[in-house]
C-alpha cells in the first residue's frame, strides 16, 4: 500500500467535497450521467472518494468500488447507503489490486488518473482485472497540447500536486501505453476535460 498517497487523501477527506466544489459537480453531472449510463455486467469503479459520483450512477447496478483512503470511504458511507443498487466499497491501492485476473466486464474512473502516482502501472493493473474485450470508461481532466493552456497547467501542477492532483497528465497517451485500444475520445472542455472509452484487446 502506498501509505504516502493514502495519507494525502486521508488528510483531504474532511474538506474534499468543499474543495471539489458544487460548481464542478453541477457542470460535469450531465456528462458523467451519460458516461455511467453505460454501466452493465461486473463493474469496478476506481477511486470512489467521498462518493460524489454515486448520484450520477444508474440505479440497480452491482458495483465494486475501491479507494486508497479509508477516510474518504467513511465520508462516502451515507451516499453508498443511499444508492438504489449495490456498492461494495473496499480500501485498495490500484497498484496492488486484490482481484483475480479478468474479474470485471467494465471499469470506470472519474478524475482519478490525475492522482495515481504511476498512472501507466495503474492502468496496466486495471487491465489485468478487466476481461479481454472488456471496456474502460474514463472521465478525466488531462494536460493540454495547446499553449498557453499547457504552460498554465504545468505551473498549476507545481502547486496542486502537494495537496492532490496533477493538472498536466497525458492520460490518453498513458491509456495507450498501458496496452488498451482507444475507441472514443470526447472533449468536453477544450482538450482538457474529456471522456475516454477504451477496450482491453482480446489478444
Amino acid at each position, binding site marked *: 500500500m502506498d501509505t504516502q498517497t493514502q495519507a494525502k487523501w486521508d488528510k483531504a477527506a474532511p474538506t474534499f467535497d468543499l474543495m471539489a466544489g458544487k460548481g464542478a459537480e453541477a*457542470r460535469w453531472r450531465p456528462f458523467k450521467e451519460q458516461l455511467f449510463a453505460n454501466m452493465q455486467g461486473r463493474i469496478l469503479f476506481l477511486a470512489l472518494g467521498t462518493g460524489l459520483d454515486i448520484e450520477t450512477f444508474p440505479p440497480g447496478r452491482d458495483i465494486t468500488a475501491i479507494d486508497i483512503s479509508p477516510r474518504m470511504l467513511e465520508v462516502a458511507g451515507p451516499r453508498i447507503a443511499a444508492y438504489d443498487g449495490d456498492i461494495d466499497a473496499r480500501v485498495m491501492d490500484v497498484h496492488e489490486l486484490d482481484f483475480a485476473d479478468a474479474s470485471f466486464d467494465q471499469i470506470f474512473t472519474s478524475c482519478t488518473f490525475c492522482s495515481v502516482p504511476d498512472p501507466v502501472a495503474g492502468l496496466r493493473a486495471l487491465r489485468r482485472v478487466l476481461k479481454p474485450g472488456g471496456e474502460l470508461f474514463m472521465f478525466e481532466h488531462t494536460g493540454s497540447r495547446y499553449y498557453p493552456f499547457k504552460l*498554465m497547467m504545468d505551473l498549476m501542477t507545481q502547486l496542486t500536486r502537494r495537496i492532490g492532483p496533477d493538472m498536466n*497528465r*497525458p492520460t*490518453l497517451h498513458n491509456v495507450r501505453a498501458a496496452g488498451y485500444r482507444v475507441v472514443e475520445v*470526447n*472533449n*468536453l*472542455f477544450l482538450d482538457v476535460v474529456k471522456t475516454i472509452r477504451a477496450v482491453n484487446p482480446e489478444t
Partner: protein
Amino acid sequence: MDSRLYFVLGDLFSNLLVAILAGWLCSLLIPAGWNMFLAMLVAMVIGMAVGLVLFFPLGVAFGAMEVMLPTMFTGMFSGMVVGMWAAMMPLGGLQAVAAGAVCGLVGVNVIWILNNSLRGVQEPREGA
C-alpha cells in the same frame, strides 16, 4: 463552455471580474516610462496570478477547469494590454477598468471559440 444560462453568466462574470481587477492592478503597479516588453511580461504574470487567486472562490460556484483556465487566460490578456498601455502613458483608474472589461469580453469570447473548435468526439489519435 457550457450553454446552461447559469454557467454562461458565471463564465462571463468570472472573466469580467478577473480582467477588470487585473487591468486595474496593472495600471497601479506599472508606471509610465517602463520598458514596454518588461511591462508586458510583468503585467501578464500579475494578470495570471489574479486569475489563479480568484479561481478558488469562483471555482466553487462555477466549475473547475472551465473556470481556472479561462480566468488565467483572461487575466493574462488583460494584464498584457493594460500593462503595455500603462507603460506608454499615465492611465486613470476608470480607463484601466474599462480596458480590463473589454479584455474580459474578448478573452471569454476567445475561449468560447477555442472550446467550440476543440470539443466533441475526436478521432482516436495520439494526444494528451
